[in-house]
């Protein structure tokens, strides 16, 4: 597994615009292996936009974003080193949980766990062969989060990961994120409800 190596995400004075309108400006952030940052701020301030910009779905207007891996000699594009779980879960209602995860695995490449193992970690093994359309919002969320486990990628971008999760599932996700950080991963969440992990870096938007 290549995850033990040190990785750094460096964001300097990033700004994002849609047309003439500046959505976000002057964001700076440094995140290293084992660290988690929480982006907070009022609704509409651009938390999701920041995460989507880091994922590369938005072109940057200005600023720099760099990804450094100590051992990777060849520069892998950042988009291939990150997981993004957003408001849209990327799951197909007509496919079963297993098929959805296998498709996710197929898109992202290089498996670490099987669909069953990943769902087992999210305590959802019993819905493996149910179409995702039959699941509740919280269960869908958990299937989407299981994608984090199925493919090994160091940077996790989680947009409101706790939405629709019950208390037990929140504890489960917290443990999974802690495990990811422990093995040298990086996590950036946008949230109103802190995960409550020690050493969380706070990034507060909306004070500009």
């Amino acid at each position, binding site marked *: 597994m290549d995850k033990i190596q040190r990785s750094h995400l460096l964001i300097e004075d990033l700004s994002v615009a*849609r047309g003439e309108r500046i959505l976000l400006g002057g964001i700076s952030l440094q995140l290293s292996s084992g660290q988690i940052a929480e982006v907070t701020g009022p609704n509409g301030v651009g938390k999701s936009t920041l995460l989507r910009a880091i994922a590369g*779905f938005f*072109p940057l207007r200005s600023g720099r974003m760099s990804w450094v891996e100590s051992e990777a000699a060849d520069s892998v594009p950042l988009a291939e080193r990150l997981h993004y779980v*957003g408001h849209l879960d990327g799951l*197909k209602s007509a496919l079963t949980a297993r098929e959805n995860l296998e*498709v996710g695995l197929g898109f992202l490449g290089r498996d670490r766990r099987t669909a069953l193992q990943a769902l087992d970690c999210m305590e959802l093994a019993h819905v493996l062969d149910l179409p995702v359309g039959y699941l509740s919002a919280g269960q869908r969320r958990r299937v989407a989060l299981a994608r984090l486990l199925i493919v090994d990628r160091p940077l996790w971008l989680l947009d409101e990961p706790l939405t629709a999760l019950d208390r037990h599932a929140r504890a489960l996700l917290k443990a999974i994120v802690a495990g990811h950080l422990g093995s040298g991963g990086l996590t950036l969440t946008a949230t109103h409800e802190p995960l409550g992990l020690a050493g969380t870096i706070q990034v507060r938007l909306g004070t500009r």
Partner: protein
Amino acid sequence: MTRILLVVFVRDLMLARRIGGGGILGLVFFLSLVTVVPFAIGPDLRLLSRIGPAILWIAALLASLLGLDRLFQADQEDGSLDQMLLSPAPLELIVLVKCMAHWFMTGLPLVMLSPLFGLMFNLDGPALRSVAATLLVGTPTFTFLGAIGAALTVTLRRGGLLLSILVVPLAVPVLIFGVSAAQSATIPFLTPFLVLCALGLASIALAPIAAASALRSAGE
């Protein structure tokens, strides 16, 4: 890389089969158009066999346009497109494979049934063959050209109309050469057919690039 593309292909076929709609819808539309025209024109067999190839081609064009608006929209709405953007495979190739899967489910059945529908227009053996051959080349061209329109209108909820307006002008040259090859009674078959093939190959090569760049900007 090949595995990623295989997954995309199988996934799209699986989704098309489970959700239904698209492919069958196009086929039923094709069938109804082709059935209605002889009734409207009347039992003039010579006239029917003369305009038959053109009617089949027009029906194929309209049927191809029918399901195209969902080609990328379904993936954009549920966030699957984001996951595709994170894939190591270039979006251009994913688009190419998605178009192939779409054609496989919608265009290919149409081509295979076209000889049967041709009988309704009193087409003879050689004419049936040339209609099927030209449609075999023409329908993927429509799918790929349509993919450009589908990618441009991916964020529009009622993008179907705009898609038709965008795609039909691009499809006109394909229609012209397709129908002239299919009506090979008046013009030799090979020349327009080769031009049709060239148009098809150009669209397969260029449309994925255009569609992928439209999809990338749609993420903004």
